[in-house]
């Protein structure tokens, strides 16, 4: 970070050129600094600095509040629940979202029930950082996109920041929240510098990003695949089709009103995610639009992994996940009048 240009934009804030991973690190550093009750722990996060280097330097600078754990997801998550009940603010890392499945009990049965069953006598301000998604050569147990599992659980907030700025802002907001929050990152986003404004005010949970304005169709998307939605929209612009791209850094709370407003204007809806289509959270977005009585000019389009396991070989994965051209073709078809 030291070699990056820093320009002060106003007192106490600065814009730095950071990777997504560095932005996460900066958010953790800020939270560890301003919230003494925070703890940061997980597998290999402290002395090794994380398998992706995201937590590098934090053990050195914050001491025993940052520590390594056994490879024990139930113990990591369960201890976070207990520590949070007793006044700590644990930030724990589950190295790959796939690993959360061995400790799903601690998230669904335990963490999400703390506030409700105790009628607010207890809170569980736990942040679970994890990362997911397909990347070349990753095996079937390191490639899944599982956000829908967690979005089925009331009591749990879920975010999937796409930009480095949102990686920073979402994580700061999550750690300051007294609700349990699952922040799902994506390792394919960790590299590549972007301008990130640090030290801004803590933002409320929720909201969406209009990544591209358009008039003919609304694409609702989140996570790394947002880039393909924007590439598709750009390609379609050249063919005279104007696509609005809404990117949702927060899925719970879901910015339903903003989505409805866009779809009311365009009259066409596509949802796009890297997760499987059936039971994917895009289906919920479609249902919200349908349930609100928004008149669609064409049936809604659901784009995602076509209900498949995820293979390891890049050529096989490429055959499953829609690329920008396939996305563009389907959205273009959506915009044709019957």
């Amino acid at each position, binding site marked *: 970070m030291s070699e990056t240009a820093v320009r002060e934009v106003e007192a106490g804030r600065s814009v730095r050129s950071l990777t997504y991973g560095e932005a996460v690190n900066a958010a953790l550093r800020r939270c560890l600094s301003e919230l003494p009750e925070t703890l940061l722990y997980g597998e290999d996060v402290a002395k090794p600095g994380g398998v992706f280097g995201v937590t590098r330097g934090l053990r050195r600078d914050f001491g025993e509040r940052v520590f390594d754990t056994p490879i024990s997801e139930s113990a990591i998550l369960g201890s976070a629940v207990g520590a949070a009940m007793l006044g700590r603010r644990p930030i724990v890392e589950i190295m790959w979202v796939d690993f959360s499945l061995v400790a799903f009990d601690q998230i669904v*049965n335990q963490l999400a029930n703390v506030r409700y069953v105790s009628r607010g006598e207890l809170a569980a301000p736990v942040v679970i950082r994890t990362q997911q998604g397909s990347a070349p050569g990753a095996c079937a147990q390191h490639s899944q996109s599982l956000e829908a599992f967690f979005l089925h659980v009331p009591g749990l907030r879920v975010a999937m920041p796409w930009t480095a700025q949102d990686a920073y802002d979402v994580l700061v907001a999550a750690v300051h929240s007294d609700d349990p929050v699952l922040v799902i990152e994506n390792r394919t986003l960790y590299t590549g510098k972007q301008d990130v404004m640090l030290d801004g005010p803590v933002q409320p949970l929720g909201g969406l990003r209009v990544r591209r304005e358009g008039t003919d169709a609304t694409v609702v998307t989140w996570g790394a695949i947002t880039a393909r939605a924007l590439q598709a929209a750009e390609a379609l612009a050249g063919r005279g089709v104007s696509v609005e791209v809404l990117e949702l850094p927060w899925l719970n709370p879901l910015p339903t009103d903003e989505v409805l407003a866009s779809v009311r204007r365009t009259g066409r809806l596509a949802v796009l995610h890297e997760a499987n289509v059936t039971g994917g959270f895009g289906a919920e977005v479609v249902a919200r639009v349908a349930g609100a009585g928004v008149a669609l000019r064409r049936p809604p389009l659901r784009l995602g992994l076509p209900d498949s396991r995820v293979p390891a070989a890049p050529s096989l994965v490429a055959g499953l996940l829609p690329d920008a051209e396939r996305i563009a073709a389907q959205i273009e078809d959506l915009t044709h009048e019957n």
Partner: protein
Amino acid sequence: MDTGGMATGGTATGGTDDQVLADLREVWRMRAFEEKVRELRLAGDAVGSIHLGIGQEAIAVGAAGLVRDEDAVFATYRGHNWAMACGVAPAALFGELLGRATGINGGRGGSAHLTAPAHRFFGENSIVGAGAPIAAGAALAGRFDGSGRVALTVFGDGAMNQGAVHEAMNFAAALNLPVVFVCENNSWSELTPIEEMVRDPRLHRRAAAYGMPGERIDGNDPAVVRERLGAAFAVAREGGGPTLVEAMTARLVGHYIGDAEQYRRPGELDEARRREPVVVLGDRLRAAGVGEDVIDGAERAAREEMERAAAEALAAPLADPANVKEHLYV
């Protein structure tokens, strides 16, 4: 610390007569509470699956005086005794089991998910073994908040075969956390004998594998429990980390109310009833010359208290569905 044997009343004095009588009164309060719960369940006033700890009260009674204000207790769905040991009012417990607005959780917890943090009772857990890692977290918090907290987590013999318990024990041992792991071994993992589900039924011996002390004790004698759990609390408070205590006991009733208990061995319950806490404590008082009227008085007072508490709960309004979605989020 693992002697391979079992600490019994032979090594504990049993305390003063006053202590023994106080223990008997507490055992009877728990017993009378649960027998009233069973009556309410069979009458249909309480509904759903309810798990009683009748016969196992001495463990909670022995632990009660060891838990300080800063400590935290984590129990299982067979946890009414532990809620009472932490000082939760019986009327608030009846209210919870009866779905009343006055219940300790306003009807959100029920029999199997009671939670009373104001009483250091951080909850029952309906998932076998799930409380153990949560307790480790409570102990972890104490490392940073200066409280000196000890976390006690209690679970059954069946939970010893849960991965979460293994993870919690290793986690607590590796991080040297002040956790007292209490295994209430009633010999039945729900409806299945523990000795058929493990190669070595001496469950406390697993402690050695985690590098922590472990011992088997007589869980039907509050004096033994007080002494041996007290030693574990002392180790934890002195920075010595976790301990596993396997408290041998017997569940004198089914796994849940309505369990036909066809799995019981012939004579098993008769034998267990000869060694249960009410008998252990009553015999000790008689041997010390305490009169039957005093001994009987413990039961009588407990039953009267629980009748009053149950009546109070039954008279309370039902939990209000208008509030059912409150407290999901901040």
